[in-house]
């Protein structure tokens, strides 16, 4: 078996953080390769620290390695210092387990969680010694595949990937492996393999579709053969209880983000926040049985030696019986030493500060709330129906129990936003600090604002994103309003990064050459503020004769063909359109877990349904739970942080 280790080893003494490249994690498998096995290289096209914790990748890694006819290893994007050395010494990209050259695998499978990593995908493929364009690859090259949230609009990368997987990967990865094992043993040519993959539900082969444009605008993306489906539907696993993965989470030797045990407690969210693509595309809600969660937590802590566990989901406070799971974990007499629990969740209104206190017995430093918008009107539009009183009660309770620092997350550039809505953010922050002063001398509130980027398969997919200038103007409004406010700190996400993210998130195939140009000009690691360069993107757009305004800033119309119309996240387009109209009419929509179904399509289209243990909405929430909004007795809270972001200034 070939390995680049002898060539790589001397280079590692010359790079930052060489531990990124050695593997050796607890939980890593050294798979056997062989003719009867399809070899997969699972790639996360960002640094090891960002990519290693990715749960989707780890789940597929385990599932594939459990099969007798597959072998899976991992790789991450080498940092620029190592990349330079690899190119200089002619060493290809490699896997971490056996340091096998990436080009020797049958499949390079990328997890795409953010649009700004697209140039890194090209770079990894190139470092593997594989042509970046699908059309230029031959029978001996690996297949390049992608999955993850970004693949709901994969059109900008359609030229570079051979196949894209929509939705949950647990089942479909095995079906793809079946196709590839057969193809490998028959020696089927590449074109034939691609044809066969179009027959797997949830697999989209861009080369088997053709996009047509009229008057500079996309009018259709249609299959080129009768055997190819008109619409590719996403995959959804019906019951998380069948998939207790990852069962042996990787424990890295060097520090990574989210360096802790992670246990997914449910998938999907039907709170219905209209800006949230993750919520829309992962419907319906599928809870893991509480006992399975307890087992995974207990065994995971014992096996890994971590002293922290995150119960992950899009809104963990909504998990039926969350209080008892948290209490059992914190008070588990069999655990060695103190265990802390984190509840990453972007919601404000569904948990009590009391539970936060339980969870953070020892480290009571900072709490994060995500009201997302500054006024009630705006929160109705985005369907995040948190009342001001809910937020203040949460903040009051947190300060009174010893927390001193609050972090508040907001979006700016939302549909129909006025300056009054923007300034409402400053008002909320000011009031939170005032509450804090009743308890501490110097309370602090950090206000973090990000420019809203409309995403595919959300009700806001028709909305024209704010320009960089408009977002900056709003940031400056806030800065001026908060200038003399002691205790309030304002941070913002770079609006130029939001622009490029917006370009990719709703772009079509004509952006392929733009991505390639930016990559060829050296534009990798665009998620990293020190490497991000919007000028490269804007120049590439201009040189390919494309208009940023056409893609990003104009409002799209109901009858217009969207680049992702031939793909489906289960959601009916007319449901999304109606929800968009409701948004503009400032009409909220309740959570379908506890109210009648709206037939959005996510269950009804696939013959599945919610799996939620509790028949009643959780305490402490106000939005969409059918609760009396006027009561407000319970206190909402959200813990933990968002993933790292570009250019927080």
């Amino acid at each position, binding site marked *: 078996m070939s390995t680049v280790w002898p060539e790589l080893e*001397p280079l*590692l*003494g010359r790079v930052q*953080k*060489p*531990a990124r*490249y*050695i*593997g*050796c*994690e*607890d939980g890593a498998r050294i798979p056997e390769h062989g003719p009867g096995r399809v070899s997969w290289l699972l790639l996360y096209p960002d640094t090891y620290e960002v990519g290693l914790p990715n749960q989707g990748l780890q789940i597929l890694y385990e599932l594939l390695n459990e099969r007798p006819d597959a072998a899976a290893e991992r790789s991450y994007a080498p940092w620029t210092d190592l990349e330079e050395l690899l190119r200089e010494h002619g060493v290809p990209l490699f896997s971490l387990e056996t340091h096998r050259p990436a080009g020797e695998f049958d499949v390079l499978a990328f997890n795409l969680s953010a649009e700004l990593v697209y140039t890194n995908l090209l770079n990894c493929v190139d470092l593997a010694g594989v042509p970046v364009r699908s059309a230029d690859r031959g029978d001996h090259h690996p297949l390049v595949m992608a999955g993850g949230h970004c693949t709901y609009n994969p059109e900008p990368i359609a030229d570079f990937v051979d196949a894209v997987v929509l939705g949950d990967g647990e089942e479909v990865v095995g079906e793809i492996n079946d196709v590839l094992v057969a193809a490998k043993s028959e020696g089927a040519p590449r074109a034939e393999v691609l044809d066969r993959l179009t027959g797997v539900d949830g697999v989209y082969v861009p080369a088997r579709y053709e996009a047509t444009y009229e008057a500079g605008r996309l009018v259709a993306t249609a299959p080129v053969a009768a055997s190819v489906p008109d619409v590719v539907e996403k995959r959804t696993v019906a019951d998380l209880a069948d998939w207790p993965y990852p069962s042996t989470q990787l*424990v890295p*030797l*060097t*520090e990574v983000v989210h360096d802790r045990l992670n246990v997914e407690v449910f998938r999907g969210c039907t709170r219905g926040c209209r800006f949230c693509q993750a919520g829309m595309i992962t419907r319906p809600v599928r809870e893991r049985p509480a006992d399975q969660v307890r087992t995974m937590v207990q065994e995971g802590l*014992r*096996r*890994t*030696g*971590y*002293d922290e566990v995150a119960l992950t989901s899009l809104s963990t406070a909504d998990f039926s019986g969350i209080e008892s799971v948290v209490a059992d974990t914190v008070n588990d007499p069999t655990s*060695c*030493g*103190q265990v802390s629990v984190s509840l990453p969740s972007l919601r404000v209104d569904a948990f009590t500060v009391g539970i936060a206190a339980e969870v953070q017995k*020892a*480290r*009571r*430093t900072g709490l994060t709330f995500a009201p997302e918008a500054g006024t009630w009107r705006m929160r109705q539009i985005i369907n995040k129906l948190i009342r001001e009183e809910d937020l203040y009660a949460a903040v009051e309770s947190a300060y009174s129990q010893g927390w001193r620092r609050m972090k508040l997350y907001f979006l700016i550039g939302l549909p129909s936003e006025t300056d009054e809505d923007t300034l409402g953010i400053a008002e909320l922050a000011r009031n939170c600090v005032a509450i804090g002063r009743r308890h501490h001398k110097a309370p602090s509130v950090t206000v973090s604002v990000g420019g809203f980027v409309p995403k595919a398969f959300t009700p806001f997919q028709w909305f024209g994103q704010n320009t960089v200038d408009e977002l900056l103007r709003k940031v400056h409004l806030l800065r001026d309003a908060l200038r003399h406010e002691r205790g309030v700190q304002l941070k913002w996400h770079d609006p130029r990064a939001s622009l490029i993210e917006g370009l990719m998130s709703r772009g079509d195939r004509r952006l392929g050459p733009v991505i390639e140009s930016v990559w060829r000009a050296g534009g990798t690691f665009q998620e990293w503020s020190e490497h991000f360069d919007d000028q490269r993107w804007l120049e590439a757009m201009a040189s390919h004769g494309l208009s940023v305004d056409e893609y990003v800033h104009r409002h799209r119309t109901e009858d217009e063909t969207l680049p992702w119309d031939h793909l489906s996240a289960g959601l009916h387009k007319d449901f999304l359109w109606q929800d968009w109209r409701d948004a503009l009419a400032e009409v909220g929509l309740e959570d379908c877990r506890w109210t009648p179904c709206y037939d959005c399509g996510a269950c009804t289209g696939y013959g599945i349904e919610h799996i939620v243990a509790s028949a009643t909405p959780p305490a402490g929430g106000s939005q969409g739970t059918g609760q009396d909004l006027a009561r407000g007795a319970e206190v909402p809270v959200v813990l933990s942080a968002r993933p790292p972001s570009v250019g927080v200034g």
Partner: protein
Amino acid sequence: MKVRLRFAKQGKVRFTSHRDVARVWERALRRAELPVAYTQGFTPRPRLHFGLALPTGAESLAEYLDVDLDLGDDAADGFDPATLPDRLTSCLPGGITVVAAAIVDTGVMSLQQAVTSCTWHLEVGGTTGSQLAAVAARALAADEIVITRERKSKQVTDDLRPYLLALSVVGESPDGALLEAEVGTQPRSVRPSELLAALDPVLTERRVTRIHQWMTLDGVRCEPLSPGGPVASSSAHAEVRAS
């Protein structure tokens, strides 16, 4: 109760940093279900006391760690440190091997203070055994070996000669020779790469291994803990007490 551990770090894991290894140890001790004592306060930390940092990329046969344990009196009576090497090694990543363990006095001088010198093996490229021997002889004959190095982002000048306690060529390596160097660690450590650069800039560093750390007890040079079975452990116990 304080336990002193000696471990080796070899192979791919040598690319982990000192900080990484500290975290690896925290998890390993929890996996081994040893009752490590914690600091008080807002953010309780396990009471682990590491010796001199090993440069990232270097191997070692002689790393040390002191761990405070929170054993009840009964448990302390039955506690056998001889079981620790196997128990801990199985909880550590491949390449980190515990080679000795002993109970030491709780008031023992910290490893960082007690250790006065380290012996290194440096595989050196771009030279031959005889060339390197000449370089070594020249260095030992010199009155001073002045280098500039960065400390807290300032350039400072240091004389390395007082740190250089022994230097000899002990073997050949594929494209060069093997140098053994004993280097002082007080008041500051000298990194093997700094030593090599000071000896002759054409020398290239290949693999570096720390093979010993030394302290002085009643004028006698000894290791904080010798590798091996219970005999070595108990003698370490006595030595450290004597200090």
